[in-house]
């Protein structure tokens, strides 16, 4: 087993990796920016190194600083987490060139799969079905328009270097293609340092089904069954499940085998995920993510496998400890992403200080968070505060457990998407498994703000009692203020806020 690892990330995933390493007796080194001095991922590491200011490009994305921190602390391996440098082939290469172990696939694999157009070519060659569209990046908005008219509308513009919905635009009208191309390219350049954009036919109501893979470099490639990630907004996953409630055993086997075929086609080593869109009985390859996914805990719950443990074992030169037939699939798991966003206000990013944090407990509940009381939630990084995951013997009980756990979760001081999550878990189409990537746009009623009657009455009573208590505790003020000040924002005209091009994915 490797003796030490530097975790080149922050937030919940850095903590997840540090936990996994500590459990194997691996010495852990955290890196942190000035904004993260007080973060849980720092305090739970064995050693921690400040690598720069809050701006990611000068800290978490600075390959030189990360490698220097590894050198200073004597770390022998680097785990990239997800996001930041995780799918940067040049980073994987630099780590290996520095004589360290990269906990992930080879730079060449990352490069091939990171270039989405190259990935589409390779998969098509390996006999994995892909969505119709271009296999090369486009040169301009007008070229994008041409391709769109060939493939047929709607289309989706995607960053070749992309992921997580960034640099992605759905377009339904030909005259909007050029503007959307510019916006996508701009976003892609800002997010990935690469403005290449390609085009695919946009499937209206597909389900997003992905397969967890593992390869070990000894010729063993296994899958750990599928995840259903159809509940998305703006192409960002919100709720994930394992297994998919859609698939029968035959389809499960089929999609698993297709994923293994895809992995073998690129000699895959380590943890990876093949994403598929499923519509009208057909699977289409969407992309391959050459890293641990945000939603990996649902797979861990239904298989009992610790994916980070396997990552470290494979990175240490061990073989995968199970054969395909030995990998369990037991019960049902659900994950809800809890983000600092105002769901009833166009998913506006929210900021604040975490004043109170109550984490759900009890059976079948897991919390993977990256915050603590006092954490400042700013705008520098991803809005993911934590992930709540539940497991039970079947989907219905897992959902009931999630509802119970969400009711226990309190993150005071910053708006989160939890109220929306609670509504989804009560909605009949979701409960029946009638979901697709269009689910949220097809259920606008979920976004109607407002409290129900009982909550409204409780809010009125709580406010009166709080103020009453405060007045009883504080002596009456000598000088009375005149009037009452509203915040600027409340007093102003509420602008209508919407994303530039709000697709229905």
């Amino acid at each position: 087993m490797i003796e030490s690892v530097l975790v080149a990330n922050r937030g919940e995933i850095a903590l997840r990796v540090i936990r996994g390493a500590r459990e194997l007796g691996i010495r852990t080194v955290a890196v942190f920016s000035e904004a993260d001095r007080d973060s849980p991922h720092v305090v739970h590491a064995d050693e921690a190194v400040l690598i720069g200011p809050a701006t990611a490009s000068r800290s978490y994305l600075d390959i030189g600083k990360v490698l220097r921190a590894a050198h200073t602390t004597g770390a022998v391996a680097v785990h990239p987490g997800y996001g930041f440098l995780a799918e940067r082939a040049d980073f994987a290469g630099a780590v290996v060139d520095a004589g360290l172990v990269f906990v992930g696939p080879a730079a060449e694999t990352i490069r091939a799969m990171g270039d989405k157009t190259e990935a589409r070519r390779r998969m098509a060659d390996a006999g994995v079905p892909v969505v119709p569209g271009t296999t090369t990046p486009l040169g301009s908005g007008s070229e994008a328009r041409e391709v769109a008219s060939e493939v047929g509308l709607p289309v989706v513009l995607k960053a070749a270097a992309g992921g997580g919905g960034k640099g992605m635009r759905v377009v339904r009208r030909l005259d909007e293609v050029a503007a959307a191309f510019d916006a996508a390219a701009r976003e892609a350049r800002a997010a990935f340092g690469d403005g290449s954009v390609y085009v695919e036919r946009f499937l209206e109501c597909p389900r997003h089904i992905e397969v967890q893979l593992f390869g070990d470099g000894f010729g063993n490639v296994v899958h750990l069954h599928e995840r259903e990630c159809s509940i998305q907004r703006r192409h960002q996953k919100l709720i994930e499940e394992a297994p998919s409630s859609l698939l029968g055993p035959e389809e499960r086997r089929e999609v698993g085998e297709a994923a293994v075929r895809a992995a073998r086609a690129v000699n895959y080593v380590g943890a990876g995920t093949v994403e598929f869109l499923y519509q009208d009985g057909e699977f289409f390859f969407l992309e391959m993510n050459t890293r641990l996914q945000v939603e990996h805990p649902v797979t861990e719950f239904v298989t009992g496998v610790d994916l980070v443990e396997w990552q470290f074992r494979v990175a240490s030169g061990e073989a995968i400890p199970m054969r395909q037939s030995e990998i369990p699939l037991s019960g049902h798991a659900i994950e809800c992403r809890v983000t600092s966003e105002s769901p009833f206000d166009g998913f506006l990013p929210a900021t604040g200080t975490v004043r109170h944090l109550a984490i759900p407990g009890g059976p079948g509940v897991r919390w993977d968070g990256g915050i603590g009381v006092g954490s400042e939630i700013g705008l520098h990084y991803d809005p993911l505060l934590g992930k709540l995951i539940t497991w039970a013997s079947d989907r219905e009980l897992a959902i009931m457990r999630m509802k119970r756990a969400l009711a226990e979760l309190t993150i005071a001081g910053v708006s989160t998407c939890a109220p929306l999550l609670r509504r989804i878990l009560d909605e009949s189409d979701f409960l029946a498994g009638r979901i697709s990537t269009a689910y949220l746009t097809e259920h606008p009623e979920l976004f109607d703000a407002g409290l129900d009657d009982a909550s409204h009455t409780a809010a009125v009573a709580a406010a009166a009692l709080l103020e009453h208590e405060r007045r009883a505790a504080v002596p009456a003020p000598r000088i009375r203020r005149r009037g009452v000040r509203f915040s600027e924002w409340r007093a102003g005209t509420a602008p209508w806020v919407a994303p530039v091009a709000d697709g229905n994915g």
Partner: protein
Amino acid sequence: MDRTGSRYVVSVAGETHDVVVGVDGKVVIDGDAHEASLSGSGLARLRTLLLDGKPWAVCAEIRSRGFWEFELDGDRVSAEVLDARAARVRSLSAGAGSERGVAALKAPMPGLVVQVAVETGEIVEPGAAVVIVEAMKMENELRATAAGRVGRILVAPGEAVEKGQTLVEFGEVERK
């Protein structure tokens, strides 16, 4: 505070209620009596409101005198509480001094201005894009809520803005 309790005017979600907090654990809301108690003490921690036997988790923060923000069983609530006298003063002055004919587009969140899509003097339609602000690596298009003529433009691309900061002012707005 008299024997019959303290009287407040409470506003939540745009609705205003007459509330009497009694000395006996009773709270009367718009004439309906409820049994109510709030456990313990202290802001910034979870407390229990027991209302007619039903418990609610409350984590409260005071914004300014009488302005409360709290998590109530996971919902985020803003509330204003005035005593009866202050409420009367407020009702007498309502309407006075309010701005007319001028609207402003304010930043709903902190971020970076990516693009200003209008020019001074231009007439915009409802829903027209006015400013694009990037926050958390996503672009957010701020659109006009009504037709109007663009007045002063107070920001430029590349500029960082605070939440609530005025970005663009609109002149006399003609509503049809």
